[in-house]
């Protein structure tokens, strides 16, 4: 019995000292780590929606999003920000997506990925210009047209990393669609700049559901794409 208790107590003392020391170090570094993550997140948010100055987080139908406003009056949104998650080749890729009010994409920023070095990591690689070429392809595209070239779309996939390219593209599309549906159901009026206005008192007004027929078809193709991965 004694041969168990003595080593046990010794180990406990070592563990206690180590634990206390680590607790102290953690209390020093955790505020710095949190600040770093917040800075990275805010940088991504500002990057994808440069016109916005004021950000207002909200949740509709369990879809989390941030509305960006040009000034503190918070009347006309200049766009929305959502986070998309896609299953890539070796990681869940997290992308911050900036959407204009007409649901074209303002810009995207991949904030987390752990794909194959030299292949999937090219998604965040900068060759020319201020941001990675892969992310830049999304600028100004309408969300429901997004698809990689192998799926008949016009997003050029990364050589040797089709799975990564497809995961990002489809996750952005799905996230934007979810937000569009969530907002569409809760707002009486979905305004499309330059287009005809929806009349909330007329349920048959086709302008209220400008792409409802299209969305039905999209649903099928999305399910099959997900199943294929």
């Amino acid at each position, binding site marked *: 019995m004694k041969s168990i208790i003595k080593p046990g107590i010794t180990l406990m003392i070592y563990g206690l000292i180590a634990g206390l020391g680590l607790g102290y170090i953690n209390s020093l570094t*955790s505020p710095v780590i949190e600040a770093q993550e917040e800075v990275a997140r805010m940088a991504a948010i500002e990057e994808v929606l440069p016109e916005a100055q004021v950000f207002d987080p909200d949740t509709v139908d369990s879809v989390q999003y941030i509305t960006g406003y040009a000034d503190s009056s918070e009347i006309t949104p200049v766009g929305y920000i959502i986070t998309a998650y896609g299953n890539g080749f070796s990681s869940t890729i997290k992308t911050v997506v900036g959407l204009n009010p007409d649901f074209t994409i303002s810009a995207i920023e991949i904030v987390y990925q752990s794909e194959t070095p030299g*292949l999937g990591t090219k998604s965040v690689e900068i060759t020319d210009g201020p941001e990675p070429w892969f992310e830049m392809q999304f600028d100004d595209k309408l969300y429901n047209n997004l698809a990689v070239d192998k799926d008949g779309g016009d997003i050029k996939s990364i050589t040797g990393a089709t799975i990564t390219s497809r995961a990002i593209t489809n996750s952005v599309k799905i996230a934007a669609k979810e937000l569009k549906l969530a907002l569409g159901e809760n707002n009486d009026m979905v305004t499309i700049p330059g287009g005809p206005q929806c009349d909330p008192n007329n349920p048959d007004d086709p302008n209220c559901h400008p792409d409802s027929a299209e969305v039905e078809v999209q649903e099928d193709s999305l399910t099959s794409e997900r199943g294929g991965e």
Partner: protein
Amino acid sequence: MKIIKDFTKGILVENPVLVLALGLCPTLAVTSSAINGLGMGCAATFVLVMSNLIVSLIKPLVPSRIRIPIFITVIATFVTITKLVMAAYTPALSEALGIFIPLIVVNCIILGRAEAFASKHSPLRSLVDGLGMGFGFTLTLVVLGAFRELIGSGTIFGQQIMGDNYKPALLMILPPGAFLSLGFMVALARMLLEKTRKEA
């Protein structure tokens, strides 16, 4: 004289990677670029030096039956400190090295040196041994990383070396490139060792 030998043996004669063949997993995995190799080498060196020093200091207080769990506790503590500090102050490097920082705990070099050297020698010699081994490990990782980065991306430490017409051989920054380059480095180390032995 002994102290100097404690340091220099880690560079070639008892180089942890090339001669002792310890810690191959992080060596192969993180050396896709020179900066990753340097970061990993420095992190492992810090842990190695500190754990060697502490193990050597507490050795009279360690019952031999439970020395391994105690050594691991010491090592794990310093690895966690390294991980927290890197996440706080070098987030980009910390993300690039990812899981391999926490995995320093099970890096055989560190437990190997604690068991084979620090638990038998004075704190000063253990510290120097840790420094030497860490330096040898870091040097190997940087050379391996720089070589793979040069062939695989045309850069070293992110600086363009090869001309614009150079087509990078992607294979070199993928796992097969790690094995191939390490093989050549081990062969080179053997050759140097043979040469120094003949001269001696």
